[in-house]
C-alpha cells in the first residue's frame, strides 16, 4: 500500500509548491503585505504534518516504540507533527477568532513539546548507533559534558545576554529562555552523536543516521533565524525564516523516508545463475 516512491513524490511536490510560492512572494510582494504572505506562513506546516505521518508509518517497520530505531523515528515524527499542530493552532486563532499576534497561546504547547520529542529522537538514535561504546573513552566522556554546556552557553550569549525582560509578561520571558536553550540541547546531542559514533557506525545505517542528524542541525538553524528576526523586529510572514522552516521540514522528511526500504536493502544479493 505504501511505497517509497509515493512518499518521495508527495514530499518533493509539497516542497516544490512552497518554494515556488516563496519565490513568487519575493517578486510580487516586495512590501511583504500581501494576504498570500500570511497564507504561506499559516500553511507551510503541512509539510511537517505530512512528514510526521510518513515517519510514523516508517517507524512501524522498525518496531515502533519497541526498539531504539523505532522510538527515534517515532519521536522525530511526533516532533514534526507538533510543529504542524502549533501552526494550525495559530491559524485557527487568526482566521476563526480574528486574533492577531496571539503569542503566546495554545500553539506554544505543541512547539514546546517538539523539543523533548526531538531530544528523545536523537537520544534513541545515539543508543542505536553505539554511543555507549564511544562513551567508554575518556575523551568522549569529556565531550559529552562539554558540548551541550558550550552550546547552551553560546545560545544564551547570542540570544539572551541583552534580553530585557522589563514589562514583558512572565510567560513570554519563560518561552524566550526555553526555546533557544532547549533547541541548543537537542542540537548538541545531535552533534555529540555524530562525533562520538562516526568511528564505529558503518553499514547501511551510517548515511541514513547522519542525514537525520544533519536535518536536526538545520532545524536548529531555522529556529535560530526565526528568533533573530523576531528579536530584531525583521520577521515578516513569508520571509527567510519561513523558507528555512520549509527546507528543514523537507530535509527531515527525506531523512525519515530513507529508513523505509530497509527490508529491500538487507536482502542478500541474488547469486548469478
Amino acid at each position: 500500500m505504501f511505497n517509497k516512491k509515493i512518499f518521495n513524490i508527495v514530499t518533493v511536490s509539497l516542497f516544490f509548491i512552497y518554494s515556488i510560492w516563496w519565490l513568487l512572494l519575493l517578486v510580487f510582494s516586495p512590501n511583504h503585505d500581501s494576504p498570500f504572505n500570511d497564507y504561506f506562513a499559516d500553511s507551510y506546516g503541512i509539510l511537517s504534518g505530512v512528514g510526521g505521518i510518513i515517519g510514523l508509518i516508517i517507524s512501524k517497520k522498525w518496531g515502533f516504540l519497541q526498539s531504539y530505531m523505532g522510538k527515534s523515528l517515532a519521536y522525530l515524527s511526533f516532533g514534526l507533527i507538533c510543529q504542524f499542530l502549533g501552526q494550525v493552532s495559530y491559524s485557527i486563532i487568526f482566521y476563526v477568532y480574528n486574533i492577531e499576534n496571539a503569542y503566546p497561546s495554545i500553539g506554544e504547547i505543541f512547539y514546546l513539546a517538539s523539543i523533548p520529542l526531538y531530544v528523545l529522537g536523537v537520544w534513541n538514535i545515539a543508543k542505536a548507533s553505539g554511543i555507549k561504546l564511544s562513551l567508554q573513552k575518556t575523551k568522549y566522556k569529556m565531550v559529552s559534558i562539554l558540548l551541550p554546556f558550550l552550546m547552551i552557553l553560546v545560545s544564551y550569549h547570542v540570544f539572551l545576554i541583552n534580553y530585557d525582560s522589563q514589562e514583558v509578561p512572565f510567560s513570554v520571558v519563560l518561552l524566550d529562555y526555553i526555546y533557544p536553550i532547549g533547541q541548543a540541547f537537542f542540537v548538541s546531542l545531535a552533534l555529540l552523536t555524530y562525533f562520538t559514533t562516526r568511528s564505529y557506525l558503518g553499514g547501511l545505517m551510517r548515511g541514513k543516521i547522519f542525514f537525520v542528524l544533519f536535518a536536526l542541525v538545520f532545524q536548529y538553524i531555522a529556529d535560530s533565524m526565526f528568533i533573530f528576526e523576531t528579536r530584531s523586529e525583521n520577521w515578516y510572514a513569508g520571509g527567510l525564516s519561513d523558507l528555512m522552516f520549509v527546507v528543514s521540514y523537507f530535509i527531515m522528511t527525506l531523512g525519515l523516508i530513507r529508513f523505509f526500504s530497509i527490508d529491500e536493502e538487507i536482502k542478500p544479493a541474488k547469486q548469478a545463475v
Partner: protein
Amino acid sequence: MHIENIVREIIKEQSQIIGEQLARQIAINSGVVKFNSTNVDDLTITSPGEGAALEKIINSYEMLFGNTSVEVCIDVIHRFGSKEISDILPDSLNQRLSRSK
C-alpha cells in the same frame, strides 16, 4: 546448543535496536537460522558448522550498523564465555573477540 543460545541472545539484542521483525529477517538472510514459529526463541541453526554459523550471523548484522552491530554481537559472546567456545569458532572470529576485550 550453546551456539544456538548465543544466536538467540544476539537476535534479541539486535531486536532491541532495530525491532524484532528486521532482526529476524537479517538472521534468516544469513542463511544459517530457521525460525520454527513466530516466537524468536524457537529457532534452529541450519548450518553444519556452528562456529561458522555464528560468524555468518555477525556478518549479516554488520551490514546494518557496521562495527556497532559487531560489538553488540561480540558483547553477547563474551557474556556467554568466549573462552569456552573459542575452539569451535573460526580464527577470524576469535581475532575479533580478542581485539574487543
